[in-house]
């Protein structure tokens, strides 16, 4: 496909053009993401699947602005990530992006409420406490607000993470193996909650997962093999 200047469609919220990421290894340059071009519309739910080492998480990091590509372009919510510095990308993420991680990534020294308040405080919101409490109630943890992560089960921790991700009503939510550290039953509950919240907020969902039934709930599935979309 010719490498023309990409046209951002009217409702496109995430777009890449010949996105490539290479790293240096002892064996020489290693291409992790290889010439990926995609276009995701606002409100769409997209699953990125593939074997381990296919480059899914690296692609997700590039799409979210957590890393910079070796070549190519990424537009997120109308902004060209490749021309923003790290602080610029951070400011964009604060306003438009939410994250859910496989390892939950809750701050151990903060309570559930304080963890959910974190993105609100970083964005300078005055109603951080109230909004965080409401988000926790929405995920069924209204009575656990003052508990620390070590006092919560894996599923409860991931629900706190969901509350934190959705409390800012992000334009795009990136989820990296959200049920990877959970048992099947808990994983299904968390997965259901994820899609419920997504439907309520009309957030664009980018989901990296191994699980076929979770991927099947997305509107579109992208398969990666050896860094390329197939």
């Amino acid at each position, binding site marked *: 496909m010719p490498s023309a200047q990409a046209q951002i469609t009217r409702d496109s919220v995430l777009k890449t053009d010949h996105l490539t990421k290479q790293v240096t290894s002892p064996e020489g340059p290693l291409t992790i993401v290889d010439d990926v071009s995609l276009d995701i519309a606002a409100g769409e739910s997209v699953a990125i699947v593939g074997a381990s080492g296919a480059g899914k*998480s*690296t692609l*997700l*990091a590039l799409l*979210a*602005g*957590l*890393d910079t590509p070796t070549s190519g372009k990424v537009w997120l919510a109308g902004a060209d990530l490749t021309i923003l510095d*790290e*602080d610029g*990308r*951070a*400011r964009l*993420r*604060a*306003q438009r992006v939410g*994250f859910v*991680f496989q390892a939950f*990534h809750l*701050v*151990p*020294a*903060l309570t559930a409420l*304080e963890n959910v308040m*974190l*993105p609100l405080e*970083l*964005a300078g919101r005055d109603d951080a406490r109230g909004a965080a409490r409401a988000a926790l109630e929405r995920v069924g943890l209204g009575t656990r607000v003052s508990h620390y992560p070590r006092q919560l089960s894996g599923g409860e921790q991931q629900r706190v993470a969901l509350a*934190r991700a959705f409390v800012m009503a992000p334009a795009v939510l990136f989820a*990296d193996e959200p049920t990877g550290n959970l048992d099947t039953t808990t994983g299904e509950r968390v997965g259901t909650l994820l899609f419920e919240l997504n439907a309520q907020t009309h957030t664009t969902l980018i989901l990296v997962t191994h699980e076929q039934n979770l991927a099947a709930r997305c509107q579109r599935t992208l398969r990666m093999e050896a860094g390329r979309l197939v």
Partner: protein
Amino acid sequence: MLVREWRSGELGVLLLALTVAVASLTGVGFLVNRIGAAVDLQATEVLAADVRLGSPQPISQASLDEAVRRGLHAVRSTRLLSVVFQGDQSQLTNIHAVGPGYPLRGHVLVASTPFAKGEAITGIPAKGEVWPDSRLLAATGGSVGSMLAIGSGTFRVSRVLISLPDQGGTFAELAPSLLMNIQDLPATQLIQPGSRVSYSLLFAGPRERIDDFKPWLLLNKKPAERLRDIRDASPQIKSATERAGRFLSLASLVSVLLCAIAVAMSARRYVHRRLDVVALMKTLGATSGFTLSVSLLQLLAIACVAAIIGSAVGFIAQEWLLRALRGLFNAELPPPNLLPIVLGFVTAIALLVGFALPSLLQLARVPTIRVLRRDVGPAPLLVVLAFGPAVAVIAFLIYSVVREVKLFLDFTLGLAAFVTLEACAGWLLVYLAGRLRGSVGVAWRYGVANLSRRRAESVLQIVAFGTGIMVLLLLSIVRNHVQDSWRHSLPEDLPNYFFINIPPADRDAFVNFLNERGAQTSRVLPMIRGRLTAINDRPIEGAQSAGDTENFASREQNLTWESELGADNSLVAGRWWTRADFGKPLVSLATEFQDSLHVRVGDRLTFDIAGESITAIVGSISGSVMWKSSCQNVTPSTCAAS
């Protein structure tokens, strides 16, 4: 955020280390501050003023008028030696004639009977009255109510002088004293052309006004006039206090260095455990600037808390120490000023900047991708950025304590050499340990593998703990060495009592009296007062003089004579006199005064001894083994062949 961080418990060690460092420095700081203030206070009492202008000539009214104009107190004081008579009895006496307001600092103590406990009095003798001291009354057989003849005047003894603040602490002021009203001085007709009189103007007032007035005095005083302030009073005590303070500060610096190591280690650990959280916060939208400002504010808050708590602990510690040493101080020490607290705060900031900030700055450089890849961390700092602040802080702390360039360089270079040696040894140890992996048991293998996998960290820990142990041992060794070397530097038979001004007729009886009571008499030396007036026929005012020996040229000295060179003396130039030299006017001069006056063997020195001018030739220069510690060379700086 700090409160939330505190909950994690990772800042506790950092805060504790800083608090101990601040407590150590401020504790010593408060103690030295109070002792220094007490010495200064006593120094002003020794001067009987804040500043004293002295001259062998009458001092003009201009200085006094200027002082009054500036809102200062000023008093005239005239001192001279003269014989005081009571009937047929007479005694050479130090006469102090003072004006109203004397003393401006300190107190005159008087009593109604000789050798009684004195009480402070406000005011000076009225016209026609005098206050002789107990020795003068004992020597002349007088008492309160007696009449004493001083020159052409006669005065009534109204009180017994017990002590004056500016009595004088040197061996020179050994004659009894008498206090009189300066308005009575003309009536004595003691001051004639050629009389040797010491005129003084005493000034006292608020510190800042005194400090403003001193430059005016220095600018407007005559060449013969000499300005003295608290630095000139009790210089020996002040010097000893400063030296003791510096040793204590150096000792506390050792604990500060230990705490610095603890701060560095805890900061590294804290940062290492915060990398994931900071990466997450960046993911959620925190900028590098925000992360950095949070870190800096945390540092500032920790410094403030450590400074406050540490200063409080330091203050309590010095109070406890003073109570334990109460017997060593005659008076209550004045309260400390706030300077040690400022020092504590500066120390806390300096330690954090030097030992924690470089690690904390790494947090701002954590790559966001770490949330997905934990193997990715911040790029290591350049060596100069990683260690430069710590080195600078250590150098600053050491210099602020020792305040001597040579000692600072010696200490710093020694420390640097030790750390370098330690690092090399640590690296070698870790390398050799790695080679042993295959030949040790399972348990040991994991430990050894850990050591060699994190080689840089392992070496850093070896250096940190090794340096900590070294400074602890150093303090212990230095303390013992200082005590031992001081003890061994003193001869076994060092005198600890000195008797001065024994009348020649009483000499043998007095020595026998002491010997019968078990005293071991080392030497009995004759002594006479003399004033150097010329060097090689050039009047002494033109001679160069410097340092603490300038007094040799400006006032009377104690001269002695003996035929044999003492065992504690050694000649550095010239030769000691022999029997063939007896009768020749030869002198032997101490090395300190040789350096001060630039005198050599063969030079001619002219002395005024009891009004008689005597010229002698420098036959030798002698060095005293124990000059400063007053061993057997107690008073003489000049020996004469007789």
